[in-house]
């Protein structure tokens, strides 16, 4: 079985973004970029499936600018076999990404597609589910455990009330939650090896996909900042302030 993993290049999760002064977006100039943390978990899961003999090939795809090759190489250093970059400098909406991934799925015919549940920049939490609808596939979102068998996969999902387990017909879409696994670090020899793995570059036009979006961002603002309050000296002072000043207890 082939496993396809989609990864996104995003701002490093440790960095607090700043809004540009003209309010057109956030300032990404000279900011450290990395693979979206949920995508790292997706890569790790696919590589583990290969190590268990469940998957025979792990293909990693990213849609983004030329420099997103870095994230594809990282995924290959972690164990993916080959990469596909659908190169575009336009920032695309989830729907366009899902349409492009649908085309990749048509070509590659994977048994499983694993994606992160959300990217930490747009926080949309949409792409995997949209791909599911467009490709006519089942989906197991927010996965914390997966067990693949002959024609199906059992997925345990993190839901608001606790955990839910579903059985999905293959081929299926999985989106990862934080507790699915702990991604490994790439070793130096594997980073070197990854440089020689095949990486195919395509464009949205190659797939004949219309990437025009019905959404327009008019403005990006800073949120209202909270100002730091006061330090209290004791528990009794805290209780007194909560009762008489804040009046919340």
């Amino acid at each position: 079985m082939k496993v396809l993993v989609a990864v996104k290049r995003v701002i490093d999760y440790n960095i607090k973004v700043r809004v540009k002064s003209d309010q057109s977006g956030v300032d990404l100039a000279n900011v450290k970029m990395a693979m979206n943390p949920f995508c790292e978990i997706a890569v790790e899961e696919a590589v583990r499936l290969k190590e268990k003999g469940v998957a025979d090939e792990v293909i990693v795809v990213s849609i983004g600018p030329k420099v997103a090759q870095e994230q594809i190489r990282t995924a290959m250093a972690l164990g993916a076999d080959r990469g596909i970059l659908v190169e575009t400098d336009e920032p695309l909406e989830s729907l366009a990404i899902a349409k492009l991934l649908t085309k990749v799925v048509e070509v590659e015919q994977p048994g499983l597609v694993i994606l992160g549940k959300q990217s930490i920049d747009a926080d949309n939490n949409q792409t995997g589910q949209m791909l599911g609808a467009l490709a006519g596939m089942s989906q197991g979102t927010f996965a914390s455990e997966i067990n693949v068998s002959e024609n199906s996969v059992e997925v345990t999902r993190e839901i608001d009330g606790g955990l839910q387990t579903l059985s999905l017909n293959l081929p299926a879409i999985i989106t990862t939650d934080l507790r699915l696994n702990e991604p490994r670090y790439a070793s130096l020899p594997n980073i070197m090896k990854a440089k020689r793995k095949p990486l195919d570059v395509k464009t949205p036009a190659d797939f004949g996909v219309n990437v025009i979006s019905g959404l327009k961002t008019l403005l990006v603002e800073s949120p209202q900042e909270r100002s730091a309050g006061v330090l209290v000296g004791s528990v009794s002072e805290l209780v007194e302030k909560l009762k008489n000043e804040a009046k919340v207890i």
Partner: protein
Amino acid sequence: MSILVIAEHDNGSLKDETLNTVTAAVQIGGNVDLLIAGENCNAVAEQAAKISGVNRVLVADHAVYAHQLAENISLLVSELAVDYSHVLAPATTNGKNFMPRVAATLDVSQISEITAVVSADTFKRPIYAGNAIATVQSTDKVKVITVRATGFDAAVCDGSATIESLDKATDAGLSSFVKEELAQSDRPGLTSAKVIISGGRGMGNSSNFSLLEQVADKLGAAVGASRAAVDAGYAPNDMQVGQTGKIVAPDLYIAVGISGAIQHLAGMKDSKVIVAINKDEEAPIFQVADFGLVDDLFDAVPELANSL
């Protein structure tokens, strides 16, 4: 304009997030219908008919909708959506699960987790873990939207909508329900609680969470956790507050042994009053706290429980 709101429920009762979502729909303006898809969900329909602002309650009662399987619910919703200008669902794990499938089926974008309605086609939503707020405009024929409950007040319940049953049931045949392990608790839910006390890695182990429960019992509070506490097994996943857990905005949020990472703040910084208890005075949580107490939690929390 006419708006379809998808209700959140467990077949037995309506979930509060539905009420906040109805408020968002009313702010957009126009006729508001509510869909309840489930199995043996009559009680939910009765409850929903009382929500002010709702015109009709549509009920799709069938086994294929019992567990809210995304593949099945999204087929139903996208079929109904053609008669509406907007489709709204709460941004719960359930809404997040099926709504993008609805949007893709309709060939439109989804606007995730709106926190404000600017006009019928323009909305505000947080991005980058809430460190920026985007105003987005949609030209799509149907606007598919998930609603962050903390951005909207709950609708009041003194209405009387009509209830209509839909004779629809489509099984996509792609997935099936196996089992569910739901947390049982007498405490209020995190997303509806007026007071929350949350513990982080500083709690040290799961049994120490009982210290927080003692305070919670006195205040009628819900208990939450940071990701580090959940990852370490101190607390179950449904207690995680943050960018990728639950988004909460209670009147009072007490963070205990939590450092205040960006991703945690994203889930609680809209709380009215924030209290931080941490032994490290440099912890970033103090930068957002209205009241900070630099102290060992194992001294401070039992004392707090005793003094309430």
